[in-house]
């Protein structure tokens, strides 16, 4: 059994479990699935400033903070106790494309040539961590949600603005990978 769990889980298992999060949250306590709201609650709890957008009773929404803390703990559990002993399998074409950009496909979930502490105070670190994170945090809140709130919860409840947002998530992603990313790698590679 543990052998099976240790293998990478197929997409239909993962997709089903993620989809079930929607009714689980609704039925446990009338909560709406959405992860990026946690970032807003952290702002409201820690650094509300004098900004009306962060002045609300964040404690009422604290369930969301417990949920994301759980995701972090889940990451620890899965990696410490259930991890796959074999190297990650990446599509051959993607591997080739990345190598052409000087990114080695190694054994971990994330390429060490980018996601390592040594890069923290380099241009690479500035772009991938600081600017990348900023785009995620600013973009999701401006969009009114992320992949969970719009693509999964929004589409599940047939909200057309969520369909619009999901399409533009993809447009942004394609633009990054095919247009901006080669330029970034020529800068920092």
């Amino acid at each position, binding site marked *: 059994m543990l052998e099976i769990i240790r293998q990478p889980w197929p997409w239909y298992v993962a997709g089903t479990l993620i989809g079930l999060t929607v009714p689980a949250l609704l039925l446990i306590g009338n909560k709406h699935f959405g992860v990026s709201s946690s970032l807003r609650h952290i702002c409201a709890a820690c650094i509300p400033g004098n900004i009306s*957008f962060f002045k609300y009773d964040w404690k009422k929404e604290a369930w969301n903070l417990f949920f994301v803390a*759980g995701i972090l703990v889940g990451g620890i559990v899965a990696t410490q106790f259930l991890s796959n002993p074999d190297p990650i399998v990446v599509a051959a074409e993607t591997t080739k494309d990345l190598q052409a950009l000087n990114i080695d496909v190694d054994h971990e979930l994330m390429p060490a040539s980018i996601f390592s502490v040594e890069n923290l105070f380099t241009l690479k670190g500035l772009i991938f961590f600081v600017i990348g994170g900023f*785009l995620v945090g600013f973009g*999701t809140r401006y969009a009114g949600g992320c992949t969970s709130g719009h693509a999964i919860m929004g589409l599940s409840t047939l909200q057309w603005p969520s369909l619009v947002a999901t399409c533009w998530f993809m447009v942004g992603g394609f633009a990054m990978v095919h247009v901006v990313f080669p330029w970034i790698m020529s800068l920092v590679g």
Partner: protein
Amino acid sequence: MKNKIDNLNATSLTSSHPVECEAPNDQVATEGLIASNLKYMVLGILFGIVFVKAEIISWYRIQEMFRLHSIFMYGVIGIAVVVGMISVWMIKRFQIKTLQKEKVIFHDKKFHWGNVIGASIFGLGWALTGACPGPLFAQIGSGFLVVSVTLVSAIAGTWVYGLVRNRLPH
């Protein structure tokens, strides 16, 4: 445009929820801060395990998706949406109540230009970091501690949005 923004602000002051909170708590019964929230942490743990075990948090998976070299992420999101849709349909059809016997509340989302502009900005960041907000937390848990910087920066991004919100097109 100005009226629209005034409306947005008005809601934020009168509503018990933060305006447009996309993941609101609609439960009427009040909950203790720690004890009753622990169940959401358990759910989060399961969710985090799925993220890691299906390698959804991998930067490579996001690259494959946007290079159209793998159907994996499309399959994950597609199935999740179908399962979510069926679940929501069943909750509405059979009027399934929450554990506290409350009616499940759904909200309609209103279109605003952030659904286009903000969504594109997020898409750029998603492909660059290889993570949407959920996987950020799971990546840190998986030992990629440097992602904490990405998370702090994402919080900063959210904060700056709050700061300049009234000056952005919505």
